[in-house]
């Protein structure tokens, strides 16, 4: 059940590479995405626990990430069909192929139960997504791609060093296994200084990929220059996959009895990320870069949630799904607006609601959802995280989080409302783009899912999040 989840997207990628027609090729995205989603759901319905000691396996955390990635990819692939139809002049062989490889690499990372394999998969996601960011082939997208490639590769290289430090912590031993189950079993015997050093490198390394401040510098550039659907997949899918890598590290630290340090590390990253996000969101003139800082903010919230643990960890697991889907809504809607107005500056784009009523409404609804307004999902998950923070007695942190959320709400609101409301700017006549079912349908479905997560959480879904959170909890 595990191999097809990695092999099927790669096979589709091969087909995409060999198919000569730019018109037919985009169809491989929704077909591949549907097959993958079907496979993931079958895998999720099968509750047999993964055998110990394998390089790949599906545990509750993998379930959450697999579902999140395949759902997001499926919806984005439908959008991609409409998007690539508008951009037939560009050629999409590399784009479609890399997207499918990207999906395969993310699934591989979600199921990896070996630190080495996890590393290889996370690095593969960087490499597969670099050509996607470069899709527009202009000066700005080159700059963004180069920054992404260098910063994330160096980050991932530091994570490799961290993994080697963790391995060194197991010495002297006849053989060191980086298999997760073995590491967890042997964790209490690991050498503490090496393990701690390894943790720091892994936190910084994978943290670069997650985009914690101050390691986030690639994020605004990349999310600003990449096509909307790539922004959605990066901000929703890739960051969650990289966060999963951090959670694996946390599992090891917990098992080794070093939970306090791991939690502290996560909290520091979270607090700093929120601060940076709040500072840069205010008067942000570019609405796609705005979304990047919102992504930094939400990675910070996730870090705080898992750093506090308990109820907050459950909230954070739920928030991962909410964040991914809401970012999907926002980036896809922002992509549509960008297409029509050929600009993403707030002084050049105004009054979108009169020109693209559906995209603009989605953008506003997405903004309300991501900033934690009821009745959307992020409200519930952020509230749960806050409850966890106050229950555990971190009153100062709770107050800080509320303050930052309020600042970010106001900062984002001023840009989002300036863009969507008012008189349409002259720029809108430049392009003939109109909302179609394929370009507004997928974000609409995402928004409905986010709304559902806010109003009613089915028992099976609650269990999915609770099991995932329980896995990173400290065992008494």
């Amino acid at each position, binding site marked *: 059940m595990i191999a097809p989840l990695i092999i099927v997207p790669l096979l589709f990628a091969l087909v995409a590479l060999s198919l000569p027609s730019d018109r037919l090729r985009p169809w491989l995205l929704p077909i591949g995405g549907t097959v993958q989603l079907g496979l993931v759901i079958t895998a999720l319905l099968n509750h047999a626990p993964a055998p110990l000691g394998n390089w790949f396996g599906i545990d509750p955390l993998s379930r959450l990430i697999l579902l999140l990635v395949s759902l997001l990819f499926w919806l984005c692939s439908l959008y991609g069909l409409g998007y690539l139809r508008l951009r037939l002049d560009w050629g999409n062989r590399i784009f479609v192929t890399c997207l499918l490889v990207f999906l395969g690499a993310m699934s591989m990372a979600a199921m990896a139960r*070996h630190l*080495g*394999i996890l*590393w*290889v998969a996370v*690095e*593969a996601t*960087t*490499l597969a997504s*670099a*050509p996607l960011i*470069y899709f527009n*082939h*202009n*000066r*700005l997208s*080159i*700059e*963004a*791609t*180069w*920054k992404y*490639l*260098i910063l994330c*590769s*160096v980050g991932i*290289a530091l994570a*490799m*060093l961290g993994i*080697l430090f963790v*391995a*060194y912590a197991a*010495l*002297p*031993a*006849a*053989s*060191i*296994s*980086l298999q997760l189950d073995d590491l967890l079993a042997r964790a209490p015997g690991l*050498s503490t*200084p*090496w393990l701690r050093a390894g943790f720091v490198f892994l936190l910084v390394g994978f943290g670069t990929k997650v985009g914690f401040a101050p390691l986030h510098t690639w994020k*605004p*550039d990349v999310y*600003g*220059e990449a096509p909307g659907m790539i922004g959605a997949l990066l901000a929703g899918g890739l960051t969650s996959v990289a966060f999963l890598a951090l959670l694996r590290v946390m599992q090891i630290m917990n098992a080794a009895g070093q939970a306090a340090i791991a939690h502290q590390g996560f909290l520091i990253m979270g607090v700093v990320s929120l601060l940076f996000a709040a500072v*840069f969101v205010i008067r942000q003139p570019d609405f796609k870069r705005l979304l990047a800082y919102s992504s930094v903010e939400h990675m910070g919230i996730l870090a705080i949630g898992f750093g506090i643990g308990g109820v907050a960890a459950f909230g954070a697991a739920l928030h991962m799904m909410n964040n991914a889907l809401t970012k999907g809504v926002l980036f896809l809607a922002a992509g549509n607006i960008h297409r029509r107005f050929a600009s993403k500056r707030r002084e050049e784009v105004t009054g979108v609601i009169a020109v693209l009523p559906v995209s603009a409404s989605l953008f506003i609804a997405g903004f309300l959802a991501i900033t934690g307004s009821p009745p959307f999902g992020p409200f519930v998950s952020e509230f749960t995280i806050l409850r966890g923070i106050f229950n555990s007695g971190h009153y100062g942190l709770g107050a800080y989080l509320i303050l930052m959320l309020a600042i970010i709400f106001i900062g984002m609101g001023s840009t989002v409302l300036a863009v969507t409301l008012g008189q349409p700017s002259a720029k809108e006549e430049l392009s003939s783009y109109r909302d179609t079912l394929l370009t507004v349908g997928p974000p609409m479905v995402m928004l409905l899912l986010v709304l559902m997560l806010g109003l009613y959480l089915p028992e099976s879904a609650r269990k999915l999040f609770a099991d995932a959170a329980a896995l990173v909890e400290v065992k008494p």
Partner: protein
Amino acid sequence: MVDVANILLLLVILLNFFVLGSNRLGACIRTVALQGGMLALVPIFLHPISGHLLLLAGTAMVLKVFFMPWLLFRAIRMVKIRREIEPMIGYVPTLILGTLATASAFIFSDRLPLIEIHQGSLAIPCSLATLATGFLMLITRRKALTQALGYLILENGIYVFGVLLAEAMPFMVEAGVLLDLLVAIFIMGIMVNQISRTFSSLNMQNLSSLRE
């Protein structure tokens, strides 16, 4: 045998200085290739020889000595550049920083809680010094290609540390790591080419329009 390994590691540290002080891109690529080749040999002298070890050394040798330099040479041929322009920090200050980093690497590794057989080994100071060199290159150089070289040197530093653990790691994982590295350099090579085509130079200062 351990003596041979130590001599190789010392040479690796010396090559770091050469790369830091040279402005000829061709010579830098060759030096990094030579460094990679020496590092590929180190595990053979450090550990008892086994099939797995030979395979690792062979793969590392092919990739680090032939493939990656070939990719990078191809990139500089295509964009017709030979020299690094004046770096952000001059060559002499970078060399001094490199010396300081190497000295601190030696002092620091004396204090690390190493296991007994690794005490006094050159592998750990060499790894830290090479890491620091890679970082210096990444931070101070302005051309995209020298940044890619800096990344390769950084990876070399990590490889030295990995060699200490080579016996215990499964080959598949190491192969995956090397493959990822190869693809990374491949994509960087393509990007270098695109950057030069779009900006008609490889100067990273051109890449600074995305700012707050």
